[in-house]
């Protein structure tokens, strides 16, 4: 016992002496990121960069993304942010970071050389990081972040399972979708799976249909409070879920399913359709390399309005405005988004590159995902976003519809109630 104690004492003293902060070299850029699947590729590129320019790029990975966000906020509070980091939050929070002076305005860099950098990157990806003239957050117009990849969320379908039900092409219209669901159920195949236990994914699906059914202007008008959620068009949106649920389209337990489990289900051929993002290519390949699947947009409900899928910048970096190595950081990001590096990243990690010129060497399915890169939409590029509390009531209401606990009309009323409560609070605050 005594020996153990003395040993512990020594360990304690050793630990005490093991403190000390590393020196911050001037020839070094510090990058904080959250992309676990890209750590290796980024390390590889960092080493290459050091060979080419002599500047050391220190990559630190903090995962999962919630822990990363917390860390960034804490570091901002203490003003110890690194040279390059990411803001994984809503546009409004992005705006707050800019207002607090933690984000460098990169517009001059993008516009330099006749806009060379700006032209090389997909416009939609830049739009995620752009604040336009007269935006609701009150930020001066410009580009404040650098996307290093793009992504989008579409409907994937298992060709084998569809064939089993006698279906050759994926559905183009909602009615076709319903018919195919019926056919699939008749041969004992679960039609549809998605990670609807995660609210953002549910939100994406429902907003795609909202835009399709009533057009985006009416949706934005609803956010502004000019159109109530009890409007017949919104009831139609909620009705989509009631219809699908009644038809038995959803896999068992879809409202408690995380996206990782949904991906498992699709990879293991437990469902014919899945709603997932371009990152799924990697996952499916790992779990079931023989999976034969294709990509398509969601089946259209209203032919008069477009069906726009969510997409845009996948991961973006910002530069710390207070950093002493600001210029070096910007140079590094320019290098990272150049054609060669983007090709390497795309190859090693199976993600869509942000640089248009690097699109040549993609796998077939990934290339299918890439077809809509120029026509996506995303909350970060909308003129305004709905209050998060209303969004929560909205998404939870849809979950209730899916499990049969509520009707579209009731959910509409509940959401409108929350909306009016929030609008009242906002009016009070601005007084």
């Amino acid at each position: 016992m005594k020996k153990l104690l003395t040993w512990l004492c020594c360990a304690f003293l050793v630990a005490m002496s093991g403190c000390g902060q590393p020196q911050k070299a001037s020839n070094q850029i510090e990058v904080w990121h959250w992309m676990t699947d890209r750590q290796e590729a980024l390390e590889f590129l960092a080493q290459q960069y050091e060979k080419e320019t002599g500047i050391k790029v220190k990559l630190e990975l903090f995962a999962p993304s919630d822990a990363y966000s917390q860390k960034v906020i804490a570091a901002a509070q203490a003003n110890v942010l690194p040279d390059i980091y990411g803001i994984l939050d809503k546009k409004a929070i992005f705006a707050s970071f800019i207002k607090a002076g933690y984000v460098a305005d990169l517009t001059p860099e993008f516009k330099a050389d006749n806009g060379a950098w700006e032209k090389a990157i997909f416009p939609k990806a830049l739009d995620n990081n752009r604040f336009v003239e007269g935006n609701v957050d009150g930020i001066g117009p410009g580009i404040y972040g650098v996307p290093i990849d793009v992504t989008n969320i579409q409907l994937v379908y298992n060709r084998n399972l569809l064939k089993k039900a006698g279906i050759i092409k994926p559905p183009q219209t909602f009615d076709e979708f319903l018919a195919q669901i019926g056919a699939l159920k008749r041969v004992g195949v679960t039609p549809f799976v998605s990670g609807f236990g995660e609210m953002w994914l549910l939100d994406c699906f429902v907003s795609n249909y909202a835009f399709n059914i009533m057009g985006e202007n009416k949706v934005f008008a609803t956010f502004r409070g000019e159109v109530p959620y009890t409007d017949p068009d919104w009831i139609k949106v909620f009705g989509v879920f009631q219809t699908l649920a009644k038809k038995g389209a959803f896999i068992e337990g879809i409202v408690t399913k995380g996206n990782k489990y949904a991906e498992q289900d699709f990879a293991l051929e437990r469902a014919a359709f899945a709603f997932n993002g371009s990152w799924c290519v990697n996952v499916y390949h790992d779990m079931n390399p023989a999976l034969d699947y294709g990509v398509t947009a969601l089946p259209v409900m209203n032919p008069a309005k477009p069906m726009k899928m969510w997409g845009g910048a996948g991961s973006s970096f910002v530069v710390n405005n207070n950093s002493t190595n600001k210029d070096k950081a910007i140079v590094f990001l320019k290098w990272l988004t150049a054609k060669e590096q983007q090709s390497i990243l795309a190859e090693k990690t199976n993600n869509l590159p942000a640089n248009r010129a690097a699109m040549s060497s993609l796998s077939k399915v990934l290339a299918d995902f890439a077809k809509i890169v120029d026509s996506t939409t995303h909350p970060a590029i909308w003129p305004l976003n709905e209050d998060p509390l209303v969004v929560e009531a909205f998404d939870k209401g849809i979950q209730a519809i899916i499990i049969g606990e509520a009707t579209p009309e009731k959910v509409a009323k509940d959401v409108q109630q929350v909306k009016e409560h929030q609008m009242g609070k906002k009016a009070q605050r601005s007084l």
Partner: protein
Amino acid sequence: MFGNKYVIESFAKNTFIHIFLMVVTVSCLFPIFWMVRSSLMTNATIFVDHALLPKELHWQNYAIAWTKGNFGVYFLNSMIYTVSVVFGIVLVSSLAAYAFSRLQFPGRNVLFIMFVAAMMVPLPGSFVPLFVLMNKLHLANTRIGYIFCMINVGLSVSILLLKTFFDKMSPDLENAARIDGCNRIQIWWHVALPLAAPAIAVIVIYNSLNVWNEYILATLLLNDKGLMPLQRGLMVFNGAYQVDYPVLMAGLTMTAVPIIVVYLIMQRHIVKGLSSGAIVG
């Protein structure tokens, strides 16, 4: 006749107890069995192959987990953190618990209530102010800072547990030592601590587990890879979108082993019993 009935009753009771124990045992062993089994498979077969033992044993998953997850460094860090924090907590909390139980001083009750109440307020939002404070004290991104934070995390429960055990102990031995001329510290070290060995073993286990599995505070407080604990290494396989299940399971298995070893060593002390009134060591 009476004797037979007693034997049957006792036999039935024992059988029932054993069946009960077996059922619970199976439910406890199943996940660990699944974890080890999965660590020897591949991502493609892990959820599909339902055989009890996989056909191919991919032992290389362990090597991959160790190298790709940089386990060497993280392992060392986790050991340093766990040993230091546990040592610190046992020292600090046993002193405090002994005082709360046996010694008089002004504010004794108030302070004890404060410690107990501290367990009850979850501090999720307080991580940010804690980080700011640590920065001001120049303790952020240092081992010492993290160690002290973790000592604080386990302090309340440890004090409560130890005080309960000290209260239960009969003061005879302590009184005898006092008559023999021992001062407070000597009584604490030679009499109270050994008698409370079961309780101390429990808090060693409790805090070891907490520190070994801790992740959020480490992510928040530490920047450099070189200071990170084991859980950080595991995160590499548990990506936001993609999970390398078999390698993750291999990593988790390796992570679980030291803690089980700690438990095996400590649980012997829990069941030493009163017959070991003799001082240990």
